[in-house]
């Protein structure tokens, strides 16, 4: 019996039963953009950057199990326009001032915006007021850049066994909170060695005193675009 496969932008992608579209695509060396998906964790499906059109329906490819014979569109001008709009929403929702951000060049949101050639935030900015939390001796939290991927929430809960982070409020007022009555990171059991301290795809969780150790210009996405780096990470690091 031959392995089942589906067509991704016209080319066959084999998959195993239970594999999602995104997972199968990656295994076959094909990149589908994503921000909240991470190989170590169950699909989350919140950022919607991985949206594809499968058998005529728009679905989150990170969460949708692959089906034999499906025709899946991903790298098309129409879908990339949708993705660009989603990025623009993330940019206007928070305060993303790249020139002052230590994560610049290593940031997945920024890298994806480069890759999808987002040149304008397009919408009217919300300019929310989100004070930073610098209380912890080793790590700074700059909530201005949070995209609510919940990777820190999941890493702290599932890998570190700590539950340092959670989300509160809802809608456009949704916010990241830490596990302390004071609301300060210093009053939690968070440590710079936690997995959660190394998983933020954007510039919320920043390690102090190392900000510009790697100079701008020599950073992750300076050398290669995210569609290349993202595929490499899985093969090399895991």
């Amino acid at each position: 019996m031959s392995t089942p496969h589906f067509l991704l932008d016209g080319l066959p992608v084999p998959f195993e039963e239970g594999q999602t579209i995104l997972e199968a695509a990656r295994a076959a060396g094909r990149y589908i953009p994503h921000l909240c998906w991470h190989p170590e964790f169950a699909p989350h499906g919140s950022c919607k950057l991985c949206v594809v059109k499968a058998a005529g329906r728009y679905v989150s490819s990170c969460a949708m199990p692959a089906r034999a014979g499906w025709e899946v569109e991903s790298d098309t001008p129409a879908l990339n326009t949708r993705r660009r709009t989603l990025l623009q929403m993330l940019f206007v929702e928070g305060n993303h001032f790249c020139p002052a951000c230590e994560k610049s060049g290593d940031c997945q949101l920024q890298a994806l915006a480069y890759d999808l050639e987002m040149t304008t935030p397009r919408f009217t900015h919300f300019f929310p007021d989100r004070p930073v939390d610098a209380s912890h001796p080793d790590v700074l939290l700059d909530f201005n850049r949070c995209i609510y991927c919940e990777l820190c929430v999941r890493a702290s809960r599932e890998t570190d066994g700590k539950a340092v982070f959670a989300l509160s409020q809802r809608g456009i007022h949704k916010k990241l909170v830490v596990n302390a009555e004071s609301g300060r990171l210093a009053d939690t059991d968070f440590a710079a060695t936690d997995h959660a301290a190394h998983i933020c795809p954007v510039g919320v969780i920043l390690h102090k005193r190392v900000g510009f150790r790697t100079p701008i210009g020599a950073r992750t996405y300076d050398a290669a675009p995210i569609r290349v780096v993202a595929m490499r990470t899985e093969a090399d690091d895991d």
Partner: protein
Amino acid sequence: MTTTDEHVEAALQRYGHRADVLLQILVELQARVGWLPSALITRVAHALGLPRARVEGVAGFYSFLHLAPVGRYRVLFSDNIVDQMLGSRALMAQLCDTLWLSPGRVSEDGLVSVDTTSCTGMGDQGPAMLVNGQAIARLDPARVNEICELIRAQRPLDAWPAHYFAIDDNIRRRDALLGSAFVPGDALRAAIALGREGWLAQMQASNLRGRGGAGFTTAVKWQACRDAPGAQKVVVCNADEGEPGTFKDRVLLTRCAHQVIEGMTLAAWAVGAQQGLIYLRGEYCYLRASLEAVLAQRRRAGWLGAGIGGVAGFDFDVEIHLGAGAYVCGEESALLESLEGKRGTPRIRPPFPVTHGYLGRPTVVNNVETLAKCCLIAQHGGPAFAATGTAQSAGTKLLSISGDCARPGVYEYPFGVSIRQVLDDCGAREVQAVQVGGASGVTVAPYEFGRKIAFEDVPTAGAFMVFDATRDIFEVARNFVHFFAHESCGFCTPCRVGTALLRNTLDKLAKGNGSAADLTEIEDLDRLLKQTSHCGLGSSAPNPVIDGLQKFRPAYERHLRNRDFVPAFDLDGALARARQMTGRDDPGAHLDNATEAER
């Protein structure tokens, strides 16, 4: 004075030290303490063995739970468009003026806070409000003045005049369900006599489809749950009637509670469930006592508990969970999360609740009306039920009618009734539009009044809001878009940000600052929301705007400041031949090619 610890102890005593009742504990504490101070959150987290941040996250999700102090009297005006049409905004202004405060702020003495809330389900008797969670309907300036006096006098809520809290049923048209007398146990007796298989076969024959809006065939859902592996199956009654403009479930829970609970028991009989849960929206908490009484009555009669109807092993009981102000919890997977004491975020599907539902167990989630209808099927048989309504929409449908009509209330019709018929019956005149199915539904224009209420034509969960010629359909849609932005759970990017952007853009138009480019932007946002949202809230949020731009475009264009267009031809050049023929060259013989804006 009761201390925080004593309150927490009392709440834990009532609900047990279980993480899955976290929301119920918080609702109880909110009622006891008036808000949820941070020390209390810490205390609850400790007692339940939960991370504090998780408890804070849950408390922060629900509109009726407050992490910051609110007034000892919390007054919330229902802000649905039909309440507004009945004058709710003016009454809120009156109350604020009288009590010297501004909406959204707590008075300096901490006595009172006033704000708006999403539709409280009293559209047939608005304007309505909630005071400390208790519903008051039929507000007018005189009653608002009385309420101001009661608040000033700090009169406890249970000493307020009882008639304030009386809620009318306003049943205007009865058919199969509302028109029949029901003897508790009759339907169950019939279903038990058929055996589990035979009963399910009757359900299949009935073609009953879910009344919550989606219209999924009930028997298919039941069968899937029955066939799912796992012993501890669950039946959930979705009584989170949050769709703006609907209130028929409120009436069913008031008048037909036995049928609803018997329907749950019938579902349990079919799927083999032992546990039943009613998720009652917080706005209807006043119904809790009467529902508990019905549950107790049914336990005494042997229609709930162990060995129901004398059948060994048919064990089923029902408990009530309260919501706390979150429309998204009407989505079945968000409802399950909420029942588990979590934030009401819709789950990734598949897997579906029928296999992985409440606490991961196979779960049937049915709407209040769907469950009540099951009794009719048990009593009169599936084929009899299927013979009514239309071929694809069997049975009757309860409509919640509000807005511009002489007789608002609940109407039961066989499926297939035309919108025009309904409008005639409720006494609507000079109708400009009807919003069928609530904010997420369809805006129906007069040329469509011949369309029928049915899954295959105009589907609806029950809301039917009438707008006469004096109303601005743009403002109706803007109200709905504000509602969706307020109720978005914020999980997925398109809904969290997109509903807020859509709201801001409609507000821009409302202020008279719109341009043609904004309409293009609105249509693009609509498409994105439809295509990429995680759940039905996001994908239906643009519906009123999509329909509005298609059917009532002038209502939008009226708000545009700039509607520039440049003709393809040279206007002055087009006069050249005539100038030549007349020999004229005076200023009146020329046209300026610049647009108004350029001049």
